[in-house]
Protein backbone atom coordinates (compact mmCIF):
# COMPACT_ATOMS: atom_id res chain seq x y z
CA UNK A 1 0.00 0.00 0.00
CA UNK A 2 1.20 3.50 -0.82
CA UNK A 3 2.49 5.44 2.17
CA UNK A 4 0.41 8.55 2.85
CA UNK A 5 2.11 11.84 2.18
CA UNK A 6 2.46 14.72 -0.22
CA UNK A 7 5.22 15.08 -2.79
CA UNK A 8 7.59 18.05 -2.44
CA UNK A 9 5.77 19.85 -5.24
CA UNK A 10 2.49 19.31 -3.41
CA UNK A 11 3.95 20.71 -0.18
CA UNK A 12 5.22 23.69 -2.18
CA UNK A 13 1.73 24.14 -3.64
CA UNK A 14 0.23 24.02 -0.13
CA UNK A 15 2.66 26.68 1.16
CA UNK A 16 1.98 28.90 -1.87
CA UNK A 17 -1.74 28.91 -0.96
CA UNK A 18 -0.83 30.60 2.35
CA UNK A 19 1.23 33.42 0.81
CA UNK A 20 -0.99 36.50 0.79
CA UNK A 21 -1.40 39.05 -1.97
CA UNK A 22 1.25 41.75 -1.75
CA UNK A 23 3.74 39.77 0.35
CA UNK A 24 7.52 40.21 0.13
CA UNK A 25 8.95 36.71 0.34
CA UNK A 26 12.36 35.05 0.48
CA UNK A 27 12.56 31.38 -0.50
CA UNK A 28 15.53 29.49 0.93
CA UNK A 29 17.89 27.38 -1.13
CA UNK A 30 16.66 23.84 -1.88
CA UNK A 31 13.06 22.69 -1.56
CA UNK A 32 11.60 26.14 -0.75
CA UNK A 33 12.39 27.54 -4.23
CA UNK A 34 9.65 25.23 -5.56
CA UNK A 35 7.05 27.40 -3.84
CA UNK A 36 7.46 30.15 -6.47
CA UNK A 37 6.08 27.78 -9.13
CA UNK A 38 2.70 27.54 -7.41
CA UNK A 39 1.78 31.11 -6.48
CA UNK A 40 -1.43 31.86 -8.39
CA UNK A 41 -0.72 34.15 -11.37
CA UNK A 42 -3.29 36.72 -10.26
CA UNK A 43 -1.62 37.14 -6.85
CA UNK A 44 1.11 39.83 -6.75
CA UNK A 45 3.96 38.46 -4.62
CA UNK A 46 7.48 39.96 -4.68
CA UNK A 47 10.36 37.51 -4.32
CA UNK A 48 13.61 38.62 -2.67
CA UNK A 49 16.96 36.96 -3.21
CA UNK A 50 19.57 37.74 -0.58
CA UNK A 51 22.32 38.41 -3.13
CA UNK A 52 20.55 41.67 -3.90
CA UNK A 53 17.40 41.16 -5.97
CA UNK A 54 13.86 42.27 -5.18
CA UNK A 55 11.30 41.30 -7.80
CA UNK A 56 13.03 38.13 -8.94
CA UNK A 57 11.40 36.21 -11.78
CA UNK A 58 11.63 32.59 -12.91
CA UNK A 59 14.52 30.80 -14.55
CA UNK A 60 15.25 32.15 -18.06
CA UNK A 61 14.92 29.98 -21.17
CA UNK A 62 18.01 28.00 -22.13
CA UNK A 63 20.80 30.15 -23.66
CA UNK A 64 19.23 33.29 -22.20
CA UNK A 65 21.07 32.86 -18.87
CA UNK A 66 23.18 35.77 -17.62
CA UNK A 67 25.92 35.00 -15.12
CA UNK A 68 25.42 38.38 -13.47
CA UNK A 69 21.80 37.50 -12.72
CA UNK A 70 21.63 34.54 -10.36
CA UNK A 71 19.72 33.71 -7.19
CA UNK A 72 21.10 32.83 -3.77
CA UNK A 73 21.49 29.22 -4.91
CA UNK A 74 23.54 30.55 -7.87
CA UNK A 75 20.92 29.44 -10.39
CA UNK A 76 20.10 31.77 -13.32
CA UNK A 77 16.98 33.89 -12.78
CA UNK A 78 15.22 36.86 -14.38
CA UNK A 79 13.91 40.25 -13.27
CA UNK A 80 10.21 41.07 -13.37
CA UNK A 81 8.89 44.53 -14.23
CA UNK A 82 9.28 46.60 -11.05
CA UNK A 83 12.38 44.73 -9.90
CA UNK A 84 15.24 46.46 -8.13
CA UNK A 85 18.85 45.62 -7.37
CA UNK A 86 20.81 46.47 -4.23
CA UNK A 87 24.06 45.73 -2.46
CA UNK A 88 24.45 43.19 0.33
CA UNK A 89 24.06 45.59 3.28
CA UNK A 90 20.73 46.84 1.93
CA UNK A 91 19.61 43.33 1.05
CA UNK A 92 20.29 42.13 4.58
CA UNK A 93 18.72 45.27 6.04
CA UNK A 94 15.55 44.10 4.28
CA UNK A 95 15.98 40.73 5.99
CA UNK A 96 17.20 41.68 9.48
CA UNK A 97 15.15 44.85 9.65
CA UNK A 98 11.87 42.95 9.55
CA UNK A 99 10.85 44.21 6.10
CA UNK A 100 10.21 40.78 4.58
CA UNK A 101 6.77 39.38 5.32
CA UNK A 102 7.74 35.76 4.99
CA UNK A 103 10.69 33.46 4.58
CA UNK A 104 10.40 29.77 3.73
CA UNK A 105 13.42 27.77 4.86
CA UNK A 106 14.51 24.16 4.66
CA UNK A 107 15.29 22.38 7.93
CA UNK A 108 17.39 19.58 9.36
CA UNK A 109 15.44 19.90 12.60
CA UNK A 110 12.74 22.11 14.09
CA UNK A 111 12.13 22.08 17.85
CA UNK A 112 8.81 22.45 19.65
CA UNK A 113 9.86 25.97 20.70
CA UNK A 114 10.61 26.98 17.10
CA UNK A 115 14.39 26.56 17.28
CA UNK A 116 15.72 25.89 13.79
CA UNK A 117 18.77 23.89 12.71
CA UNK A 118 19.43 24.04 8.99
CA UNK A 119 23.01 25.17 8.34
CA UNK A 120 25.30 22.42 9.61
CA UNK A 121 25.05 18.80 10.64
CA UNK A 122 28.10 19.39 12.82
CA UNK A 123 29.72 16.31 11.25
CA UNK A 124 33.47 16.14 11.80
CA UNK A 125 35.42 17.08 8.68
CA UNK A 126 32.48 18.75 6.94
CA UNK A 127 33.23 22.15 5.41
CA UNK A 128 31.02 24.61 7.29
CA UNK A 129 29.04 27.32 5.49
CA UNK A 130 26.16 29.45 6.71
CA UNK A 131 25.30 31.94 3.95
CA UNK A 132 22.22 33.97 4.84
CA UNK A 133 20.48 31.26 6.88
CA UNK A 134 20.98 32.86 10.31
CA UNK A 135 19.91 36.30 9.09
CA UNK A 136 16.77 34.92 7.44
CA UNK A 137 15.87 32.91 10.55
CA UNK A 138 15.83 35.97 12.82
CA UNK A 139 14.71 38.66 10.41
CA UNK A 140 11.55 37.86 8.48
CA UNK A 141 8.17 38.69 10.07
CA UNK A 142 7.17 35.04 9.65
CA UNK A 143 9.36 31.98 9.05
CA UNK A 144 7.88 28.82 7.61
CA UNK A 145 9.91 25.61 7.65
CA UNK A 146 9.45 23.26 4.68
CA UNK A 147 10.76 19.81 5.41
CA UNK A 148 10.14 16.10 5.14
CA UNK A 149 8.41 14.99 8.33
CA UNK A 150 11.06 12.34 8.98
CA UNK A 151 14.56 11.62 7.70
CA UNK A 152 15.13 8.84 5.16
CA UNK A 153 15.95 6.61 8.13
CA UNK A 154 12.55 7.42 9.63
CA UNK A 155 13.85 9.64 12.43
CA UNK A 156 11.63 12.61 13.30
CA UNK A 157 12.85 16.03 12.17
CA UNK A 158 10.43 17.77 14.52
CA UNK A 159 12.00 17.33 17.94
CA UNK A 160 11.91 18.44 21.55
CA UNK A 161 15.33 20.12 21.24
CA UNK A 162 17.56 20.45 18.19
CA UNK A 163 20.71 18.34 18.33
CA UNK A 164 22.31 19.83 15.22
CA UNK A 165 24.00 23.25 15.51
CA UNK A 166 21.41 26.01 15.96
CA UNK A 167 20.54 28.43 13.15
CA UNK A 168 18.12 30.62 15.09
CA UNK A 169 16.33 30.56 18.44
CA UNK A 170 12.55 30.31 18.32
CA UNK A 171 12.69 31.18 14.63
CA UNK A 172 9.97 29.02 13.10
CA UNK A 173 6.30 29.99 13.14
CA UNK A 174 4.84 27.16 11.07
CA UNK A 175 6.05 23.80 9.75
CA UNK A 176 4.89 22.29 6.45
CA UNK A 177 5.79 18.65 5.90
CA UNK A 178 4.68 15.83 3.61
CA UNK A 179 2.36 14.72 6.43
CA UNK A 180 1.10 17.81 8.24
CA UNK A 181 0.89 21.56 8.75
CA UNK A 182 1.87 22.44 12.30
CA UNK A 183 1.93 25.82 14.07
CA UNK A 184 4.60 26.60 16.65
CA UNK A 185 2.72 28.28 19.51
CA UNK A 186 3.68 29.34 23.04
CA UNK A 187 1.58 26.37 24.23
CA UNK A 188 3.44 23.91 21.97
CA UNK A 189 2.96 22.36 18.53
CA UNK A 190 -0.58 22.75 17.19
CA UNK A 191 -1.55 20.56 14.24
CA UNK A 192 -3.67 22.39 11.68
CA UNK A 193 -3.82 19.76 8.96
CA UNK A 194 -2.95 16.06 8.62
CA UNK A 195 -2.72 14.13 5.38
CA UNK A 196 -5.56 11.66 4.72
CA UNK A 197 -4.84 8.16 6.03
CA UNK A 198 -3.13 9.32 9.24
CA UNK A 199 -4.70 10.31 12.52
CA UNK A 200 -3.21 12.40 15.30
CA UNK A 201 -1.81 9.32 17.07
CA UNK A 202 -0.09 8.17 13.84
CA UNK A 203 1.41 11.63 13.42
CA UNK A 204 2.56 11.70 17.05
CA UNK A 205 4.46 8.44 16.44
CA UNK A 206 6.39 10.19 13.67
CA UNK A 207 7.01 13.39 15.66
CA UNK A 208 9.70 13.82 18.32
CA UNK A 209 7.80 16.35 20.44
CA UNK A 210 4.25 16.46 21.84
CA UNK A 211 1.58 17.63 19.38
CA UNK A 212 -2.00 18.72 19.94
CA UNK A 213 -4.77 19.57 17.50
CA UNK A 214 -5.28 23.23 16.64
CA UNK A 215 -8.75 24.74 17.10
CA UNK A 216 -9.70 23.38 13.70
CA UNK A 217 -7.99 20.25 12.43
CA UNK A 218 -8.23 19.91 8.65
CA UNK A 219 -7.02 17.54 5.96
CA UNK A 220 -3.70 18.28 4.24
CA UNK A 221 -4.36 17.74 0.56
CA UNK A 222 -3.08 18.99 -2.77
CA UNK A 223 -3.88 18.28 -6.42
CA UNK A 224 -1.73 15.79 -8.35
CA UNK A 225 1.36 17.73 -9.48
Amino acid sequence: MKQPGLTRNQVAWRIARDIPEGAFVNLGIGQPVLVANFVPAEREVVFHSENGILGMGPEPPEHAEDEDLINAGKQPVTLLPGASLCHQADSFAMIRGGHLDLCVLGAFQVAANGDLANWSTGAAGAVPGVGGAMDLAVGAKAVYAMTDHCTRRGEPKIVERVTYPLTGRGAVDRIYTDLAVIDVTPAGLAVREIVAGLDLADLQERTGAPIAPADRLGVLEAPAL
Partner: protein
Amino acid sequence: MIDKRVADIAEAVADIPDGATVAVGGFGEAGSPTELIHALIDRGARGLTVIANNAGNGHVGLAALLEQGRVARMICTYPRSSHSEVFEAVYRAGEVALEVVPQGTLAERLRAAGAGLGGFYTPTSVGTPLADGKETRAIGGRDYVLEYPLHADFALIKAERADRWGNLTYRLAARNFGPLMCMAAAATIVQAREIVELGGIDPETVVTPGIFVDRVVGVPDPISERAAILRGDRYP
Protein backbone atom coordinates in the same frame (compact mmCIF):
# COMPACT_ATOMS: atom_id res chain seq x y z
CA MET B 1 44.13 66.23 -12.26
CA ILE B 2 42.69 63.26 -10.45
CA ASP B 3 43.23 60.20 -12.56
CA LYS B 4 42.81 56.80 -10.95
CA ARG B 5 43.19 54.94 -14.21
CA VAL B 6 45.99 52.39 -14.36
CA ALA B 7 47.03 51.25 -17.81
CA ASP B 8 48.08 47.77 -16.89
CA ILE B 9 46.39 45.17 -14.66
CA ALA B 10 49.74 43.92 -13.34
CA GLU B 11 50.60 47.45 -12.23
CA ALA B 12 47.21 47.72 -10.52
CA VAL B 13 48.08 44.96 -8.03
CA ALA B 14 51.86 45.43 -7.94
CA ASP B 15 52.02 46.64 -4.33
CA ILE B 16 49.92 43.88 -2.68
CA PRO B 17 52.41 42.36 -0.23
CA ASP B 18 52.65 38.99 1.47
CA GLY B 19 50.24 38.75 4.40
CA ALA B 20 47.82 41.38 3.11
CA THR B 21 44.09 41.22 3.84
CA VAL B 22 42.27 41.33 0.50
CA ALA B 23 38.50 41.69 0.09
CA VAL B 24 37.35 40.03 -3.13
CA GLY B 25 33.96 41.02 -4.57
CA GLY B 26 31.43 38.68 -6.07
CA PHE B 27 28.68 36.24 -5.14
CA GLY B 28 29.41 33.02 -6.98
CA GLU B 29 30.53 34.03 -10.45
CA ALA B 30 28.46 37.23 -10.44
CA GLY B 31 30.88 40.10 -9.87
CA SER B 32 34.01 38.01 -9.47
CA PRO B 33 37.06 40.16 -10.40
CA THR B 34 38.71 37.22 -12.12
CA GLU B 35 41.36 39.15 -14.06
CA LEU B 36 42.52 41.05 -10.96
CA ILE B 37 42.81 37.78 -9.04
CA HIS B 38 44.86 36.28 -11.86
CA ALA B 39 47.12 39.34 -11.79
CA LEU B 40 47.50 38.83 -8.03
CA ILE B 41 48.52 35.21 -8.67
CA ASP B 42 51.14 36.46 -11.16
CA ARG B 43 52.30 39.04 -8.63
CA GLY B 44 53.11 36.18 -6.24
CA ALA B 45 51.93 37.50 -2.85
CA ARG B 46 51.52 34.78 -0.24
CA GLY B 47 50.03 34.29 3.20
CA LEU B 48 46.96 36.34 2.24
CA THR B 49 43.77 36.71 4.26
CA VAL B 50 40.89 36.77 1.79
CA ILE B 51 37.42 38.14 2.58
CA ALA B 52 34.79 36.91 0.10
CA ASN B 53 31.27 35.50 0.09
CA ASN B 54 32.39 32.18 -1.38
CA ALA B 55 35.69 30.38 -1.79
CA GLY B 56 36.00 29.97 -5.53
CA ASN B 57 34.77 27.58 -8.18
CA GLY B 58 36.58 25.38 -10.67
CA HIS B 59 40.27 26.23 -11.12
CA VAL B 60 40.13 29.91 -12.05
CA GLY B 61 39.87 33.15 -10.08
CA LEU B 62 39.70 32.75 -6.30
CA ALA B 63 39.87 28.96 -6.60
CA ALA B 64 43.16 29.32 -8.52
CA LEU B 65 44.55 31.67 -5.85
CA LEU B 66 43.76 29.01 -3.24
CA GLU B 67 45.12 26.21 -5.41
CA GLN B 68 48.39 28.11 -5.80
CA GLY B 69 48.76 28.14 -2.02
CA ARG B 70 48.60 31.92 -1.65
CA VAL B 71 45.82 32.08 0.94
CA ALA B 72 46.44 31.45 4.64
CA ARG B 73 42.98 32.41 5.86
CA MET B 74 39.50 32.71 4.34
CA ILE B 75 36.76 34.83 5.89
CA CYS B 76 33.57 33.89 4.07
CA THR B 77 29.94 32.98 4.44
CA TYR B 78 29.55 29.91 2.27
CA PRO B 79 32.66 28.15 0.93
CA ARG B 80 30.81 25.13 -0.49
CA SER B 81 29.28 24.95 -3.94
CA SER B 82 28.93 22.50 -6.79
CA HIS B 83 32.46 23.32 -8.09
CA SER B 84 34.33 24.21 -4.89
CA GLU B 85 36.64 21.18 -4.89
CA VAL B 86 39.79 23.29 -4.58
CA PHE B 87 38.71 24.94 -1.33
CA GLU B 88 37.52 21.65 0.12
CA ALA B 89 40.90 20.05 -0.66
CA VAL B 90 43.07 22.83 0.83
CA TYR B 91 40.78 23.15 3.86
CA ARG B 92 40.84 19.42 4.59
CA ALA B 93 44.63 19.42 4.13
CA GLY B 94 44.83 22.11 6.83
CA GLU B 95 46.46 24.57 4.43
CA VAL B 96 43.90 27.33 4.96
CA ALA B 97 42.10 28.56 8.07
CA LEU B 98 38.39 29.36 7.78
CA GLU B 99 36.23 31.91 9.59
CA VAL B 100 32.56 31.47 8.71
CA VAL B 101 30.49 34.65 9.05
CA PRO B 102 26.73 34.98 8.45
CA GLN B 103 26.21 36.79 5.15
CA GLY B 104 24.38 39.80 6.57
CA THR B 105 26.97 40.10 9.32
CA LEU B 106 29.80 40.03 6.77
CA ALA B 107 28.10 42.76 4.77
CA GLU B 108 27.51 44.93 7.83
CA ARG B 109 31.03 44.39 9.22
CA LEU B 110 32.42 45.67 5.91
CA ARG B 111 29.98 48.58 5.93
CA ALA B 112 30.92 49.41 9.55
CA ALA B 113 34.59 49.47 8.59
CA GLY B 114 33.88 51.78 5.68
CA ALA B 115 31.56 53.99 7.72
CA GLY B 116 33.96 54.51 10.61
CA LEU B 117 31.93 52.57 13.17
CA GLY B 118 33.41 50.60 16.04
CA GLY B 119 30.95 47.74 15.67
CA PHE B 120 27.27 46.93 15.91
CA TYR B 121 24.83 44.64 17.68
CA THR B 122 22.95 42.16 15.49
CA PRO B 123 20.24 39.63 16.35
CA THR B 124 21.79 37.25 13.81
CA SER B 125 23.57 34.21 15.29
CA VAL B 126 22.36 34.73 18.90
CA GLY B 127 22.61 31.41 20.73
CA THR B 128 24.44 29.69 17.88
CA PRO B 129 28.00 28.37 17.66
CA LEU B 130 28.93 31.43 15.54
CA ALA B 131 28.27 33.67 18.57
CA ASP B 132 30.55 31.67 20.87
CA GLY B 133 32.87 33.96 22.81
CA LYS B 134 31.14 37.12 21.61
CA GLU B 135 29.45 39.70 23.81
CA THR B 136 25.66 39.34 23.86
CA ARG B 137 23.46 42.16 25.11
CA ALA B 138 19.70 42.55 25.57
CA ILE B 139 18.45 45.75 23.95
CA GLY B 140 14.75 46.53 24.14
CA GLY B 141 14.04 43.01 25.33
CA ARG B 142 15.81 41.28 22.47
CA ASP B 143 19.25 39.65 22.46
CA TYR B 144 21.98 40.91 20.13
CA VAL B 145 25.57 39.85 19.40
CA LEU B 146 28.40 42.40 19.20
CA GLU B 147 30.25 42.29 15.88
CA TYR B 148 33.31 44.32 14.97
CA PRO B 149 34.19 46.15 11.74
CA LEU B 150 36.11 44.21 9.12
CA HIS B 151 38.83 46.25 7.45
CA ALA B 152 40.79 45.19 4.38
CA ASP B 153 44.14 46.40 3.11
CA PHE B 154 42.99 45.97 -0.49
CA ALA B 155 39.72 45.30 -2.29
CA LEU B 156 39.50 43.70 -5.73
CA ILE B 157 36.22 44.67 -7.38
CA LYS B 158 34.56 44.15 -10.76
CA ALA B 159 32.43 47.01 -12.03
CA GLU B 160 30.54 47.61 -15.24
CA ARG B 161 31.46 51.23 -15.85
CA ALA B 162 34.01 53.59 -14.27
CA ASP B 163 35.43 57.06 -14.84
CA ARG B 164 38.84 58.48 -13.94
CA TRP B 165 37.56 59.68 -10.55
CA GLY B 166 36.58 56.12 -9.68
CA ASN B 167 32.81 56.53 -9.86
CA LEU B 168 31.29 53.10 -10.49
CA THR B 169 28.21 51.33 -11.74
CA TYR B 170 27.67 47.59 -11.56
CA ARG B 171 25.77 45.13 -13.67
CA LEU B 172 22.64 43.37 -12.33
CA ALA B 173 23.29 41.18 -9.27
CA ALA B 174 27.07 41.50 -9.76
CA ARG B 175 26.82 44.53 -7.44
CA ASN B 176 26.54 42.34 -4.30
CA PHE B 177 29.54 43.10 -2.01
CA GLY B 178 31.22 45.63 -4.33
CA PRO B 179 30.02 48.91 -2.78
CA LEU B 180 30.77 47.66 0.75
CA MET B 181 34.23 46.31 0.02
CA CYS B 182 35.13 49.54 -1.82
CA MET B 183 34.40 51.40 1.43
CA ALA B 184 36.14 48.92 3.73
CA ALA B 185 39.55 48.74 2.05
CA ALA B 186 42.53 51.05 2.46
CA ALA B 187 43.19 50.64 -1.28
CA THR B 188 40.37 49.69 -3.65
CA ILE B 189 41.31 48.32 -7.06
CA VAL B 190 38.57 48.06 -9.68
CA GLN B 191 38.40 46.29 -13.01
CA ALA B 192 35.72 47.87 -15.18
CA ARG B 193 34.31 46.63 -18.46
CA GLU B 194 34.17 50.17 -19.72
CA ILE B 195 35.99 53.36 -18.69
CA VAL B 196 34.09 56.46 -19.74
CA GLU B 197 34.88 60.17 -19.77
CA LEU B 198 34.26 62.16 -16.61
CA GLY B 199 30.56 63.02 -16.74
CA GLY B 200 29.84 59.92 -18.78
CA ILE B 201 28.02 58.35 -15.81
CA ASP B 202 24.80 60.11 -14.83
CA PRO B 203 25.40 61.26 -11.23
CA GLU B 204 21.95 59.89 -10.33
CA THR B 205 23.09 56.40 -11.28
CA VAL B 206 26.54 56.30 -9.66
CA VAL B 207 26.43 53.37 -7.21
CA THR B 208 29.91 53.71 -5.68
CA PRO B 209 31.14 57.31 -5.48
CA GLY B 210 34.76 57.67 -6.57
CA ILE B 211 35.97 58.68 -3.10
CA PHE B 212 35.87 54.97 -2.19
CA VAL B 213 38.01 53.90 -5.17
CA ASP B 214 41.78 54.19 -5.66
CA ARG B 215 42.62 52.49 -8.96
CA VAL B 216 40.64 51.66 -12.07
CA VAL B 217 41.79 49.36 -14.85
CA GLY B 218 39.83 48.56 -17.99
CA VAL B 219 39.01 44.91 -18.71
CA PRO B 220 36.66 45.21 -21.69
CA ASP B 221 35.91 41.54 -22.20
CA PRO B 222 36.13 39.82 -18.80
CA ILE B 223 36.35 36.07 -18.41
CA SER B 224 33.04 34.35 -17.77
CA GLU B 225 33.81 32.12 -14.77
CA ARG B 226 30.80 30.00 -15.60
CA ALA B 227 32.10 29.30 -19.11
CA ALA B 228 35.67 28.80 -17.83
CA ILE B 229 34.46 26.22 -15.31
CA LEU B 230 32.42 24.38 -17.94
CA ARG B 231 35.49 24.27 -20.21
CA GLY B 232 37.68 23.06 -17.34
CA ASP B 233 40.05 26.04 -17.64
CA ARG B 234 42.90 26.36 -15.17
CA TYR B 235 44.97 29.36 -14.16
CA PRO B 236 47.86 29.81 -14.66
